[in-house]
């Protein structure tokens, strides 16, 4: 159908559409920042507000950057939000109830995140279960585990101040820790995908799994790697969220799922024709963060955030597939 539609487009129209699809998101981000600055010149365009936005958006950016790896290799990971919720409970529980030192607890949870990703990857590649179903199932199981571990009660009492400082601290040149961690994760994943041999294989598996396999790439291994990265990033977000909230609460991080997907798809429509990439995800997450910040500043009611987020997701996927159909024609 798309092929038929494109066949009837003139080359000029196609080129114009391509430029629109590539730069629409960046134009949207710039336009939004300009509009909010004009409308609210005192509250919005300040260093303080921008740092604040970035700080709050960092957790979403981390989990979205991880998800980017899973979608680049051609799979979806719906377990990340539920996993992050579980990890938040797990890390506080290990510190408060089991009395583990903070670094050990954090390490244990990161390994648990990797393990969940590994299991997702095995189910998808070896048992050949569709990734949507596999990760939805795993996510639901994780929610159950989270309730079981916390007995349904948020872990609040006895959370040490040092753990809170993980997210709230500014250990490096006064930059909020969240932003530092986010920068390291995004930078690291960008390097992995764009600059390493494994990254070439990741991109090949995403671009054409059949060609990648016949070129001698172990596609199953690469897909599992994508899930593992996604799982570790979900764990990181879960830990930082628990630290920021000062508690481990079931379902606390569930909503990151939708934010992460919106960011990833917005990102795929950015600069490259419908191709997922880490830097694009970063821009997608920024759009969402500034959008919410603007709504807050103007005192928009809570429901509007849901409307915005849903609308962004649909527009993002639309732009993404528009870009792809142009690239393929």
């Amino acid at each position, binding site marked *: 159908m798309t092929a*038929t539609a494109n066949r009837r487009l003139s080359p000029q129209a196609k080129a114009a559409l391509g430029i629109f699809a590539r730069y629409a998101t960046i134009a949207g981000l710039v336009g939004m920042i300009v509009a909010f600055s004009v409308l609210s010149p005192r509250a919005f365009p300040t260093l303080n507000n921008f740092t604040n936005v970035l700080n709050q958006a960092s957790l979403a950016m981390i989990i979205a950057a991880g998800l980017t790896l899973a979608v680049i290799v051609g799979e979806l990971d719906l377990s990340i939000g539920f996993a992050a919720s579980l990890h938040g409970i797990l890390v506080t529980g290990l510190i408060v109830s089991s009395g583990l030192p903070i670094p050990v607890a954090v390490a244990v949870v990161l390994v648990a995140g990797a393990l969940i990703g590994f299991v997702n990857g095995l189910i998808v590649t070896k048992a050949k279960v569709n990734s949507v179903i596999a990760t939805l199932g795993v996510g639901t199981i994780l929610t159950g585990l989270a309730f079981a571990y916390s007995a349904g009660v948020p872990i609040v009492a006895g959370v040490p101040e040092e753990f809170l400082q993980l997210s709230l601290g500014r250990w490096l040149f006064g930059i909020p820790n969240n932003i530092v961690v986010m920068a390291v994760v995004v930078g690291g994943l960008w*390097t992995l995908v764009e*600059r*390493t*041999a*494994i*990254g*070439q*294989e990741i*991109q*090949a598996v995403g*671009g*054409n799994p*059949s*060609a*990648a*396999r*016949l*070129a*001698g*790439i*172990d596609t199953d291994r690469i897909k599992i790697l994508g899930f593992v990265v996604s799982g570790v990033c979900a764990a990181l977000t879960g830990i930082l969220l628990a630290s920021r909230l000062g508690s481990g609460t079931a379902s606390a991080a569930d909503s990151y799922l939708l934010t992460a997907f919106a960011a990833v798809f917005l990102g795929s429509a950015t600069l490259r*024709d419908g*191709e997922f990439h880490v830097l694009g995800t970063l821009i997608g997450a920024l759009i969402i963060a500034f959008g919410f910040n603007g709504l807050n500043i103007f005192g928009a009611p809570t429901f509007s955030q849901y409307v915005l987020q849903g609308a962004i997701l649909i527009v993002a996927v639309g732009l993404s597939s528009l870009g792809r159909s142009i*690239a*393929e024609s």
Partner: protein
Amino acid sequence: MNRPVTSPVEPMSAKPPLEPAAAPFLTVTGAAKAFGGAQALADVSIALRPGEVHGLVGANGAGKSTLIRILAGLVEADRGIVRLDGEEITVVSPQQATALGMSFIHQELAFVPGMTVIENIMLGVPKKSRFGLVDWAAITREVEPIARRVGISAPLGSNVKGLSTAENWLINICRALVRKARLIVMDEPTASLSAAESEKLFAIVEDLARSGVAVLYVSHRLDEILRLCARVTVFRDGRTVADFERADLTHARLVEAIVGRAVERTPKSGEADTRGAVALKVRGLTRLPRVKGVSFDLRHGEVLGIGGLVGAGRSELARLVYGADAVDAGTMELDGVPYAPRRPADAVAAGFGLVPEERRADGLVLTKSVAFNLTLADLGRIVRSPALPLIDGGKRSKLAEKLVADLSIRTASIDTPVGRLSGGNQQKVVIGRWLSRAPKVLILDEPTRGVDIGARGEIHRLIRALAAKGVAVLVISSEPDEQPDLCDRVLVMVEGRIVAELEGPALTRNAIVEASYAHAARTEETHP
């Protein structure tokens, strides 16, 4: 109705046509279509008459399927006129083709497993309804006689699960009749039918013709064509080269028209024989239903061709050797060492390379650059060090530039998306990927399909140069001219088995085509 089976050598001229032929209702005149640089159809014409079974034959790539796709509204012809009842038409969609009374039945049959026979027959057909509900009782009453006529014996209300391929064909034919099709196009109808099932199908095809439906019967099996068809059109290299009436039909004439009287080239007299020790030894390799007990030796420095018709199991054989599919039975040895790849990565590690048949679907990451695609199978060569596997931009460009120069790949730069290159240059990229690895065995499946003449010559020289360096090369090709030019030896495959080995003066284009057809006819006769 039961005409005796004509033996391939006996002409049917003894039998006069049953009745004077009606005037054609559907004609195609001067149709042409190019895909990229490749001319799939150059100039074909065909005229179909009501109540006639019209055969369409031609070697692989002669243009049969392109014509069918044009009639079905799947591709648009570049040139040519299609007339239906004297009126010029352009079929732009499959829906329109159906509305015009054309039905197409392919080898991959369209039916939904979980549904009943009647539901499958009525798939996509507007249905009678009562009070807004589909009136299955009325529909069944109406369809029942048609179903019985085409020989569907299963109850219409039963599930299609467990029905044979033959019965699925009948369901598709029945659907065409319910839609009041005037033309039914059958593409290789007997490819997966037993001899007895084929017999039934022939009777139904003849019955259809008697009732006034036109049948376009596409088949490689010439004995069926001779038996069923009142008229046969032969395509070769995208052109209509012959139109036979029943009186003029003989097996020999058909083969001659299919093969053509092209001047035979002297088989590779200039090339030095570079064959050395056995590289790959294959014994009894089997994966049902397409590959049945294939054995051969491939030597270092040898270019070995696998010939035969599309569907003979050649690509499936290549996939087995390359570890892309699991083997049912059989063994392989590479340089005397047992070789049993479980995935392509194993084959690549052992020293294999594959240039797949569908380069866009299976060979290239189209949105990525020429450099990306050229270095994909040899990433170890372009990293800074094994310990720090960061891509070294300098090494990467150097390798890509070298391959582009060595293979004379015409591209604006190594950073151009490979999807923008012409077919021939894309193919060179897929081949080039393996060169830096110095493979022991290189498998090329249709290396010059959709490639222009110039690039084709370059690719052939490249393959010979690789063989001269000791690479063992396996070439699958459906172009009749390609293998005599290129190969030291050709094995012809028919229905999953190797039926002929051609070498030296015996290795000619005609010999390959004749082996493919002669054995196709014989296996059909001896079918249980």
